[in-house]
């Protein structure tokens, strides 16, 4: 049984949409044109395949991108989201216990990350920010590898080419240019791989993001810009970043932009597949704005009570990405109690594994400071390493430590 066969008959759009027609691909983009600017009362279009209540709604344009999704794959998406959330919660706890220096939680953004992450092929390449733990999971990066930088033992512990998942980038928006350059290279190589760049609503203000839009458009690079608009850039709401909905920015650069319900894993899967297909077909870049919510703090160092109320959080809690898929799985009999119970056990096992791995993570050797500064070596680094070694050795001479 496919997902589509259980879909509700009535097309739905986001609340408040005034557009009179259903959201076909064409309509979405022409609506975006109509909405461009700051006209009062125009609400952006939102692609949604699964409502917060867990009802599958039909979408003439995007249904075909998830038509073949089997119940098993749906359970897989659910499992991905649950395990990612469990890992994320464990990491937050580990920070509270002093095992990590910092953690950037993805709580609430599981659907955006799993939906887009599962749309990718192995040969596609991902350029993440520092919050894409769910995408990393989809790429097969071991979750414990993500924790090294947050524990302070390295600045990124995995081989980017091992899973085609680049290192986390902390400087906001920088990676969108790397993704664009990488995609230019993919196009030169003549393959049909695609590249996806993750960034947030805050990053949309960065010059580098604007430049990546320009370069990718001019060179028709096969890149998908996946913006998780989680409504908050630390303490600043999206209104402080943009006067128009972020997806509408794409229009000015000459490529399509679409807003998808970022808490709808099916919607994110469908829209990302569509955007990747465009990239593979040589149609150039696409901007996807996944409209979601950062349920937790920016990082463990942040205190959201200083800048936002709990009502907002509660309203978004009702749109929880995991809950809605669970409702759908249950209502359509795609998953039984056994599945959920087993997943619960798997979650706990993952938490335990992560906990133990972090506690066992050794501090790096002191001389790691001087390693990999250069690929071909550098006389000054050699000299300073030798000075450092002599300094360290001087303690041994004194019989100290």
């Amino acid at each position: 049984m496919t997902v589509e066969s259980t879909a509700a008959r009535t097309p739905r759009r986001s609340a408040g949409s005034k557009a009179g027609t259903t959201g076909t691909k064409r309509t979405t983009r022409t609506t975006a044109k109509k909405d461009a600017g700051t006209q009062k009362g125009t609400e952006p279009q939102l692609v949604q395949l699964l409502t917060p209540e867990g009802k599958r709604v039909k979408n003439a344009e995007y249904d075909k991108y998830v038509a073949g999704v089997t119940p098993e794959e749906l359970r897989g998406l659910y499992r991905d989201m649950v395990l990612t959330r469990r890992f994320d919660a464990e990491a937050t706890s580990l920070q509270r216990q002093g095992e990590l220096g910092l953690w950037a939680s993805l709580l609430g953004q599981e659907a955006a990350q799993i939906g887009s992450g599962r749309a990718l092929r192995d040969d596609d390449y991902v350029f993440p920010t520092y919050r894409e733990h769910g995408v990393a999971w989809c790429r097969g990066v071991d979750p414990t590898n993500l924790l090294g930088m947050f524990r302070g033992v390295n600045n990124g512990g995995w081989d980017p080419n091992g899973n085609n998942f680049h290192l986390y980038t902390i400087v906001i928006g920088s990676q969108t240019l790397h993704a664009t350059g990488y995609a230019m290279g993919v196009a030169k190589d003549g393959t049909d791989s695609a590249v996806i760049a993750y960034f947030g609503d805050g990053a949309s203000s960065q010059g580098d993001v604007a430049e990546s839009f320009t370069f990718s458009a001019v060179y028709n690079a096969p890149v998908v810009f996946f913006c998780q608009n989680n409504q908050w850039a630390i303490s600043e709401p999206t209104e402080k970043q943009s006067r128009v909905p972020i997806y509408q920015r794409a229009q000015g650069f000459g490529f399509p932009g679409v807003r998808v319900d970022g808490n709808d894993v099916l919607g994110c899967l469908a829209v990302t597949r569509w955007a990747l297909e465009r990239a593979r077909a040589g149609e150039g870049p696409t901007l996807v704005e996944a409209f979601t919510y950062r349920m937790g703090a920016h990082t463990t160092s942040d205190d959201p009570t200083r800048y936002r109320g709990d009502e907002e959080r509660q309203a978004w809690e009702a749109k929880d990405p995991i809950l809605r898929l669970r409702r759908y799985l249950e209502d359509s009999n795609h998953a039984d109690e056994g599945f959920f119970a087993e997943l619960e056990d798997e979650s706990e096992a993952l938490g335990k594994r992560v906990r133990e791995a972090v506690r066992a993570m050794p501090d790096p050797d002191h001389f790691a400071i001087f390693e990999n500064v250069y690929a071909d070596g550098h006389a000054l680094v050699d000299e300073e390493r030798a000075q450092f070694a002599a300094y360290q050795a001087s303690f041994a001479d004194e019989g100290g430590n």
Partner: protein
Amino acid sequence: MAEKLALAKAINESLRRALESDDKVLIMGEDVGKLGGVFRVTDGLQKDFGESRVIDTPLAESGIVGTAIGLALRGYRPVVEIQFDGFVFPAYDQIVTQLAKMHARSLGKVKMPVVVRIPYGGGIGAVEHHSESPESLFAHVAGLKIVSPSNASDAYWMMQQAIQSDDPVIFFEPKRRYWDKAEVNTEAIPGPLHKAAVVRPGTDLTLAAYGPMVKLCQEVADAAAEEGKSLEVLDLRSVSPIDFDSIQASVEKTRRLVVVHEAPVFFGSGAEIAARITERCFYHLEAPVLRVGGYHAPYPPARLEEEYLPNLDRVLDAVDRSLAY
């Protein structure tokens, strides 16, 4: 084959050779294609190698370097041009936070074979932002290598070596020397990229310089010779790393050192050289290491640049002060 080439043409020939010998080498920058660059350094390359390898970019320096990083991650070896020294700063973030640190961040798994070419320095009567010497701003950043040739032969070979390097190299081209001709032997075996060269041996004092100031120092040595003083001129060639061993060897012989660069003296490369050579040669030095360079003021309007830049008399004055100790 040896022939006389202008420095700009030598770089052009070097880029051509790199494009011919390695499919992964790309040229990127503003106006590098049809125009051949505002200094014609990339003249004719797009015509011969096509638009996919010699790429005219949008006017966005951060975008140029940022996409070059992405191309390097994909296995390419981009050589990017920043049109003028004063225009590199939009790219400074990408160079410092990404290009320089990617190799270390990846624990050595990722290499960044990117060359950033920057025509730099003054003396050509240009408008603001077209005459600066920002090399110290890059030398302070671990992960970058910084070189600056002083003549056509070095320009040819150092560009070959910079492109072959798996580390990012900031390649400062002395724009006022672009038209100076010298013999270039394209079959020679070059010395190491980061090794200094004694371009004139001497016994009384060492002048250390790189890029556009090497020629000036040679002129200074000529003038001093007429007064019976024997100056040794060192062409440092590389600003990161700096070949302190060669400076030390020279200073142990001459016992006096004057460092000359166009960049402001304050926190300039001369300061670093003075500190390190004082440590290394404390008992050999007969005088403190002196520096001649730009002032702690914005690069002046062209009508004043003769006063701002080190010239024959200012360097000779420093030589006299050193010898007077």
